[in-house]
């Protein structure tokens, strides 16, 4: 298991060398995206002016404060608390996000499903697990909110963050099609009968 440090954006080669169990720390740029953002992008045909090619997106809708535009708040937003949300709801957007926008890394919690695993393998992408519910810590890795597009969807805007030492994040799904979540699910299924038997339930 190796540790990597990526200055974003990254290349397909960078991604294809990652394996489940590795750790990655990101530098420079990260985008925030959420349910409504992707519903509007992929179901309602809206375009973003932001270039996501080769970039990482985190499933998020942050707590922000509207402030006057300044060097530390170029988009007029100050970050208050930024963390992640459950990725599974956004499963069907992984492929279009990669095919149409060139996204290479998706960050979230709880993992993605088999369609995303197939897209990662075919197009060269990974899922990095960040720990849900630890936003106070993650907020300290974000320096500035650089931009907010599709901002009528706030807080589900498309956010551009300037980051430093964002991680280490666990490679939970890789471009080989492997997933740590599948391994855990298989274990749970193997143990299900014994768990029920321990309570006197036959299967």
């Amino acid at each position, binding site marked *: 298991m190796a540790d990597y440090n990526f200055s974003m954006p990254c290349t397909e080669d960078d991604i294809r060398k990652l394996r489940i169990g590795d750790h990655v720390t990101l530098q420079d740029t990260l985008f925030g995206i959420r349910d*409504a953002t992707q519903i509007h992008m992929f179901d309602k045909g809206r375009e973003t002016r932001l270039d996501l090619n080769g970039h990482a997106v985190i499933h*998020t*809708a*942050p*707590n*922000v*404060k*509207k402030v006057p535009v300044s060097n530390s708040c170029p988009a007029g937003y100050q970050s*208050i*608390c*930024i*963390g*992640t*949300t*459950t990725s*599974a*709801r956004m499963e069907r957007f992984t492929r279009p996000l990669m095919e149409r926008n060139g996204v290479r890394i998706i960050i979230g*919690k*709880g*993992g993605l499903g088999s369609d995303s695993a197939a897209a990662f393998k075919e197009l060269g992408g990974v899922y990095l*697990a960040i*720990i*849900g*519910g*630890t*936003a*106070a*810590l993650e*907020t*300290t890795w974000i320096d500035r909110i650089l931009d907010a597009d599709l901002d009528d969807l*706030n*807080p589900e805007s498309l956010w551009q963050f300037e980051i430093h030492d964002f991680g280490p994040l*666990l490679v*939970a799904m890789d471009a080989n099609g492997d997933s*740590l*979540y599948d*391994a*855990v*699910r298989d*274990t*749970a*299924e193997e*143990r*299900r009968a*014994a*768990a*029920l038997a*321990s*309570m*006197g*339930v*036959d*299967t």
Partner: protein
Amino acid sequence: MKIDLEAIEETAKLLYIRALKVLPDDIKDGFQRLDASETDATGKSILATMIKNIDVAEDTDNLLCQDTGIPIYNVTIGRGVETDGIDLKDAIRKGCARATTEYPLRSSVVHPVTRVNEHTSCGHRVPVINIDFSDQAEELVIEMIPKGSGSENGSFLKMCIPAEGLGGIKTFVIDKVMEAGGKVCPPTIVGVGVGGTADLCSKLAKIAATRPLGSVCGDPEGAKLEQELGRAVNSLGIGPQGLGGDSTSFAVHVEIAATHITMNPVAVNIQCHSARRARATFKPDGVEIGF
């Protein structure tokens, strides 16, 4: 005791913000307990980060989690408390909205059809305000729970039939914990409602999920189920964040209600590891803030 509605509004605001920042001691103790017994390296490392986050939130005076949740206020009115019910609910709603706009917090509440966000954490029938009564003299309690959506989406109801017995209930709980996996932000508190009607059963599951760790079901059969299910859930290997380990749940909590001869309902409502609560107790000599 006459209730000061301005104090209710201020307290409803304070409780929302406080709940989002400071975890109750029973949850902090629960983390220490899981950390001491976790045998999986990934699980242990995730628990360590969660514990660190609790400290960072307090040190930086920040929210524990970005999810401000669906605001729930549980109001318990004791004997001899004088208040106007409509005004009381209105004051709580105003306090909730002010917490959101003045802090400011992310409003996570939208209209279910138009998906329009009023940016106040309020909407039709939200915040959820539950009113109950106690025989405690001269006391009004408000408990605030910001219920995160990742775990609230891990909510399930099954109208089992009597022929499925207790085995049907146990199987349902295990299968739903497996289905929820890492999506509900484990380690969790698994709330289980057994009995009642469909709506009461779901409500019992929520009461169970938001009970303090260390509390035990008042019914001996429910308490026995808590022990059995607690051990079984943590034998599945789902672990913190669904990435493997022993610490799938802090505990399984059960609440029960009598049911119909033809019914055997079971509901599951899950609380994430950011098991946030805050409580205010109004007495004639002032307001006490705690968990």
